């Protein structure tokens, strides 16, 4: 334990982190957002899921923190159209957004790593078919695939069922839509690793292909996987927000940041801008810090990959 800690303390990763202001600030903000959203049941002033505490008379109250005397001190960031406290709803919403983002990335990674390993290690026909498939899917853009998939799911299961199961459905939809990114990255590094001597040696010893793939090659492809994982979380959060905004994602009763923005959109014309703008800002900050961290990680772990 102590040794692992010392190793971490002397590592290049920590060194470059402590010497990069952007990384430190992004990481701090991300930490605050994640901790804040996951401890929402403890710190949020209201429970947006508890209909008993919501009073429709409180709807569309302007943010109290703006300080022009309007609103109620009970609701620092105002309320939405149903009288839910914006701050609490946003915290709960961000929790769903982050949860789906992480889940979707786990799903993509599982699919992408498996197929990427197969394509890279076996090669030939398997490689050709899988990569063609990835190319085609990518040419349709992940957004399009996600929209179409969720639309099909929704018409297949009906809106009611879909909304009940929205979280797992969204994870599956975004996971399927984005697997080619992983598969391509993994395949490229597997191709490079496969020719190295340690793989030859393992083969000579007589290890099975699957053992060589999982135990020998995979650990050596981890750093590019880590790099794209960060960026993919940001992408997944963004896709989820877009789907929810279109009404294909989280229902308004259990809103994520995207569905909050959607439900506030119509009120923007009557002057209640905070219902849309606050979750919007939160979403942008969340995505931006993850992207900045991803950029930093890419520079540190893989200088060769760095472009622009």
């Amino acid at each position: 334990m102590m040794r692992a800690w010392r190793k971490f303390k002397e590592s290049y990763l920590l060194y470059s982190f402590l010497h990069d202001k952007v990384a430190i600030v992004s990481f701090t903000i991300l930490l605050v957002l994640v901790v804040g959203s996951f401890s929402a049941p403890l710190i949020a002033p209201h429970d947006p899921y508890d209909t008993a505490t919501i009073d429709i008379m409180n709807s569309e109250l302007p943010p109290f923190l703006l300080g022009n005397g309007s609103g109620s001190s009970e609701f620092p960031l105002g309320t939405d159209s149903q009288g839910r406290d914006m701050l609490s709803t946003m915290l709960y919403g961000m929790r769903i957004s982050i949860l789906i983002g992480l889940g979707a990335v786990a799903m993509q990674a599982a699919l992408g790593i498996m197929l990427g390993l197969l394509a890279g290690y076996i090669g030939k026909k398997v490689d050709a078919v899988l990569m063609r498939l990835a190319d085609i899917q990518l040419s349709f853009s992940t957004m399009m695939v996600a929209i179409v998939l969720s639309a099909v799911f929704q018409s297949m299961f009906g809106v009611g069922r879909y909304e009940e199961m929205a979280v797992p459905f969204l994870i599956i939809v975004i996971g399927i839509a984005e697997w080619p990114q992983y598969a391509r990255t993994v395949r490229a590094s597997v191709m490079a690793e496969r020719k190295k001597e340690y793989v030859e040696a393992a083969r000579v010893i007589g290890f099975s292909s699957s053992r060589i793939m999982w135990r020998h090659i995979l650990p050596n492809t981890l750093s590019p996987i880590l790099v794209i994982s960060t960026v993919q979380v940001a992408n997944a959060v963004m896709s989820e927000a877009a789907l929810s905004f279109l009404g294909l994602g989280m229902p308004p009763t259990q809103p994520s940041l995207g569905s909050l923005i959607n439900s506030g959109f119509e009120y923007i014309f009557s002057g209640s801008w905070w219902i849309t703008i606050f979750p919007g800002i939160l979403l942008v900050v969340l995505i931006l810090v993850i992207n900045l961290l991803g950029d930093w990680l890419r520079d540190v772990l893989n200088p060769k990959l760095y472009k622009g």
Partner: protein
Amino acid sequence: MFAFVIRRILQAVIVMLVISMIGFAIKQNVGDPVRQLTGISVSAAEREALRDQLGLNDPFSVQYVRFLKKALHGDIGQSFFYKKPAMEVILKKAPATLELVFCSGVLIFFLSIPIGIYAAIYPKRIFSRIAMGGSIVGVSIPVFLTAIMLIYIFSIKLGWLPSFGRGETVNIMGWESGLFTGDGLLHLILPTVSLSSIMLPLFIRLIRSEMMEVLESEYIRFAWAKGLHRWRIWFLHAFKNTLLPVITVGGVQIGTMIAFTILTETVFQWQGMGFLFLEAVERSDTSLLVAYLIFVGIVFVIVNTVVDLIYGLVNPMVRVTGRK
């Protein structure tokens, strides 16, 4: 070159077949046409007879071939909301979407190339740094949020620009166009800017990094040594090779653009295909959904094939190494 063209076209046909298969599978599994046609009072036996008559009990492959034959003639089925052939409904809305994509494409083209080149030539200048910093913020803002903020600032607060619809359109040979009326152009501004906002940062970054790489290469150094004028080096020698990857990425991104029109059109109530598609999803109008899929699929496949062919034309290496 000829073999290359043939192979690309063959590939395009296969992709189209796969798309039609997916479309057909959606049509088969979502919704029951017999239930849509008949009321509650129709007995099970009569239903079965109708199923037979409509050929719904035939094997999958027979039905698929029938679907394909009809699709080749442009018949994908009736949209049960519009009571018209689905393809006709889609084609009527297509101009709105295509105009939006076209205008955004033009905007991206004329902004990203100069900014990208400038940032590559003078990477340390203030303007380049602002452009680079701005581009990472730009990538992090979802399109629909950009659109909402633009509406809030320019329509609600300032009241300068309209926030929804296409405005006045003129009919030019069956093409409902908003490009030729002042009102139509005014309505185009906000949607175009929002749609470009995703791609613009990406292209600026791409052009900058490619250009920087090219500027480091041997032949550019040789050109400097030869004493060529810097304009000639930058815009003729370096820029030409920068374009290669930009063409490929550009082709792929058109797909993304069309996907994002769904978002932009929803925010701006733009009466295009994307808006129609979402309506079709809400009403479970399967035929319309499939028609949209196939139409967009055709656009993607054509664009990608053309881009590949252009790429093959510009870059001889593709043709040679692609041959086996």
